[in-house]
């Protein structure tokens, strides 16, 4: 094979068309830990820390951040990074093994497209708020909540993000390289200003900003749930990063440095800032914390950081959408596709600007889905397939593959997904915060993850084998032949 053809195939594997070989993977432990941390330390940590401060004070908040993030990150990483890190397969190609070829497309739309559209609107509005606070700071006027600048800034941010995403990955890489270090500097500066005003004991004794319930246990558990949702929100993304790691262990452990460790630290700083400055809105902290000079610099960086985050998620989501959607969508021009993708976020900014202040509601809704997806992934990969994937089945055309299930959808996994989602909303309604007693000691994500996994496991054992779906190994078979993995002669 000539060198250019080899290079072409390698690029194709990097994009997710084929499995990456161990020798082609670029990240070792620290490489992935750095990339992971840079992804984690973005403006969303400000929002999550600020949302936690609404429900609990700093001491309970730190507890909720650690518990929530470690649970969410470990379950999300176990269900995605371990299989993708082992076989080098693209995450939504791997999902064919449990949802079917069309089912994995549906999951992509539900988890990535919807999530990205919501985040584009939230981050766009944060940009708008940053510009509004910048104007307030420079002109030394009291802030006006109904300012036209917020939606205008949000729309401008979405349009700019779309224009940058249309330019391709080089510009994105250059922008991203400066953002994580800048945000760490902003966090350090925030901590400095806070420590100048409050002692540690004063800081830890701060009350929550707007606790909705008189019962502190419920407020605490909502804070834990928000942070579990934050951990689970990596589910759609980390599998595809982990496939670039040299092996399975390298694909797993750095998540505890980055999306757990770095994100938790950022959220704790944000929690302190929100508690001491009396607002869950990060753009207000920058205005209030350290005077005009710091405010102007920090708000400008915050706006830029949001823009970079928006470009990153927009680009990644549209790339994946093209990959999965088939020839019809691939023939649409890249710029047109990006522009079409931005229509709904623009609609959200114009019609539901409250999504920014109620950001945690949106985040927790995503957890109702992601927790069930993680449960199904764990049940399928660890317990049903016993950590062995048949790559021939994953990459076969639908007509020839045992993973065609029922017209490309696995009804069992979809039913498990609905069951997990339903139990979540019954235990804890993200919209109204209505909850059951069960929620105060079990959270909503854990029952959802467990039930979805259990439904998937039991129904697959009972029905899938009889119907010939999915080529699952029988109960105790662990050998290669049972998984149909022997090489063709």
């Amino acid at each position, binding site marked *: 094979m000539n060198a250019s053809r080899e290079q072409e195939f390698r690029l194709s*594997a990097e994009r997710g068309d084929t499995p990456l070989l161990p020798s082609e993977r670029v990240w070792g432990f620290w490489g992935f830990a750095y990339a992971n941390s840079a992804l984690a330390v973005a403006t969303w940590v400000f929002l999550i820390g600020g949302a936690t401060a609404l429900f609990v004070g700093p001491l309970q908040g730190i*507890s909720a951040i650690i518990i929530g993030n470690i649970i969410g990150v470990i379950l999300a990483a176990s269900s995605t990074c371990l299989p993708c890190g082992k076989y080098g397969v693209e995450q939504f190609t791997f999902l064919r093994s449990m949802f079917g070829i069309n089912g994995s497309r549906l999951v992509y739309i539900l988890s990535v497209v919807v999530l990205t559209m919501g985040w584009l609107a939230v981050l766009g509005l944060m940009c708008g708020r940053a510009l509004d606070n910048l104007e307030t700071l420079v002109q030394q006027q009291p802030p006006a909540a109904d300012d036209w600048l917020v939606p205008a800034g949000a729309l401008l941010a979405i349009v700019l993000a779309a224009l940058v995403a249309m330019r391709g990955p080089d510009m994105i890489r250059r922008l991203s390289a400066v953002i994580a270090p800048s945000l760490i500097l902003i966090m350090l500066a925030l901590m400095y200003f806070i420590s100048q005003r409050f002692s540690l004991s004063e800081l830890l004794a701060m009350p929550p900003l707007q606790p909705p319930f008189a019962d502190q246990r419920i407020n605490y558990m909502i804070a834990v749930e928000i942070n579990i949702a934050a951990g689970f929100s990596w589910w759609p993304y980390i599998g595809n990063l982990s496939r670039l790691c040299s092996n399975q262990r390298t694909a797993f452990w750095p998540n505890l440095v980055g999306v757990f460790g770095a994100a938790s630290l950022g959220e704790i700083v944000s929690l302190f800032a929100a508690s001491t400055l009396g607002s869950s809105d990060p753009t207000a902290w920058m205005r209030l914390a350290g005077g005009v000079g710091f405010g102007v610099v920090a708000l400008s960086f915050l706006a830029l950081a949001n823009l970079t985050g928006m470009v990153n998620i927009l680009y990644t989501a549209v790339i994946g959408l093209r990959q999965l959607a088939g020839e019809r969508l691939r023939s649409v021009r890249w710029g047109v596709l990006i522009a079409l993708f931005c229509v709904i976020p623009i609609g959200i900014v114009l019609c539901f600007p409250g999504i920014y202040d109620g950001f945690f509601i949106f985040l927790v809704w995503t957890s109702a889905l992601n927790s069930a997806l993680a449960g199904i992934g764990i049940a399928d990969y660890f317990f049903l397939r016993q950590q062995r994937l048949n790559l021939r089945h994953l990459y076969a055309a639908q007509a020839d593959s045992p993973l065609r299930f029922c017209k490309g959808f696995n009804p069992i996994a979809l039913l498990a997904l609905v069951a997990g989602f339903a139990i979540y909303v019954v235990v804890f309604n993200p919209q109204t915060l209505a909850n059951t007693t069960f929620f105060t000691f079990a959270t909503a994500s854990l029952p959802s993850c467990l039930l979805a996994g259990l439904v998937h496991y039991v129904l697959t054992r009972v029905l899938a084998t009889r119907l010939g779906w999915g080529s699952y190994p029988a109960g105790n078979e662990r050998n290669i032949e049972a998984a149909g993995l022997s090489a063709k002669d």
Partner: protein
Amino acid sequence: MNSQVDEARAQDLERRIRAYEELERRAHWPGALSARDVVALSLLTLVMVAGAYLLGGQP
């Protein structure tokens, strides 16, 4: 021309799948998560959750 390219792609996919099938046949998969990793992860999670709960989880 297209069929040649498709054939080359299919061969490349076959090569990659075979590489993993070879790995699958070995007794030990290089860099796989071991029982020691699972124990370490369980202990870490337990310490983090219990420690954080004792720190601030009791209203």
